[in-house]
């Protein structure tokens, strides 16, 4: 992220945008040296697991182990507990569990765990729309721009934008989330989508939202697209926004 911030600082034209970016960089430095959270919203813990088919577990189950790790980590790290047990009755679970866990079975004997601490502000401005196949590329571009524009300052720009195209309703949302895990600056392996990512970056930055929505030329640091085959009648598109506190980590066992 720090490379992304430096690049953003060079590209930003608005004085207030430059000032905001400078403070964001200073904040990240304080967070690193003092070992404190860069943002108080230490998020929902989102975990993508790639589980090798040959892997066996002993003792408690995988999900239970992940949740225990989250509870211990959020306590030991003085992170904020931001999960409520029930969406309407809203009692804090006090340990930030449960994590939201997605498991993919893959060939092999490895276990890969990818973790994100996903803040609520950017998540709240994310959206999904079931487009018609006829809406095509232009429909997708317009929808992504609409979501980012509506989010404005709320999602804490400069953003990282994950776009999931295809699959069905839930698959597109998962793709958009998964897209956020790709390292900054890395393009889609398919040149067609790599070009679409470039086009979206350029167009989003022309929206003028800028750092913290106070006006400027850097609204997004990167756009990542993930795609999946879909029904002949459908063109699902999900846009998952991530704020500049783009916190990801992965381990392989």
């Amino acid at each position, binding site marked *: 992220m720090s490379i992304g911030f430096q690049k953003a600082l060079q590209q930003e034209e*608005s004085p*207030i945008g430059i000032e905001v970016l400078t403070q964001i960089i200073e904040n990240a430095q304080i967070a690193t040296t003092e070992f404190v959270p860069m943002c*108080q*919203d230490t998020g929902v813990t989102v975990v993508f697991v790639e589980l090798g088919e040959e892997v066996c577990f002993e003792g408690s189950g995988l999900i239970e182990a992940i949740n225990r790790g989250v509870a211990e980590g959020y306590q030991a790290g003085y992170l904020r507990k931001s999960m409520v047990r029930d969406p309407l009755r809203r009692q804090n679970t006090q340990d930030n569990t449960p994590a939201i866990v997605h498991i993919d079975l893959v060939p092999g004997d490895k276990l890969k765990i990818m973790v994100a601490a996903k803040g609520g502000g950017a998540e709240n401005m994310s959206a999904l729309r079931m487009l018609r196949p006829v809406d095509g590329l232009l429909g997708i571009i317009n929808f992504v721009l609409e979501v980012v524009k509506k989010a404005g300052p*709320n999602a804490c720009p400069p953003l990282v934008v994950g776009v999931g195209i295809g699959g069905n309703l839930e698959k597109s949302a998962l793709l958009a989330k998964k897209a956020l895990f790709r390292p900054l600056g890395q393009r889609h392996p398919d040149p067609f989508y790599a070009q679409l990512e470039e086009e979206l970056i350029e167009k989003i930055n022309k929206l003028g*939202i800028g750092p913290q929505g106070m006006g400027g030329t850097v609204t997004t640091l990167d756009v990542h697209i993930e795609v999946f085959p879909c029904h002949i009648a459908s063109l699902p598109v999900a846009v998952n926004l991530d704020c500049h506190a783009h916190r990801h980590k992965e381990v392989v066992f």
Partner: protein
Amino acid sequence: MPEILKITPPLSEEIIARLKAGDKVLIRGTLYAARDAAHKRMIELMDKGEELPIDLCGQIIYYVGPTPEKPGQVIGSAGPTTSSRMDPYTPRLIAEKGLKGTIGKGWRSQEVKDAMKTYKAVYFGAIGGAGALIARTIKKSELVAYEDLGPEAIRRLEVEDFPAIVINDIYGGDLYEEGIKRYTRI
């Protein structure tokens, strides 16, 4: 460069009148930390005609739910949360309780903007995600009410040179709208 105004709550009408969208301020003195869960309880008290746990007259509410403080820290990370979640509650606090300022990030509703214009109050933006930087300006943090809400409890914060930018002033100025318009090229 315009001078950076130093302000201390309670905010007088004269100070409020000087603040324009885009102005940078440094705040010294007391801020009250509260989020939507605490706002909901305050509005419920007002509905019942009961007193609030804090006197909001002339005061500023900071929309923040900090991380727990590490040993030796006054407060954990303490950046602003999204203000729109407080929009349904804010107009009544401004109109009936004399609230003069709010600090957060993101758009406000038309109802909040109208209330700010009518009753002379200001909305400030703090930098979202700059929780570690902002925490350095908080010199004291004291729990005032609703301890059971955890990170959403009401706290009295004593701040020194807390940096904020005026987003909405009493004249209808809106930094988000004006700033974005200036740089839109699509």
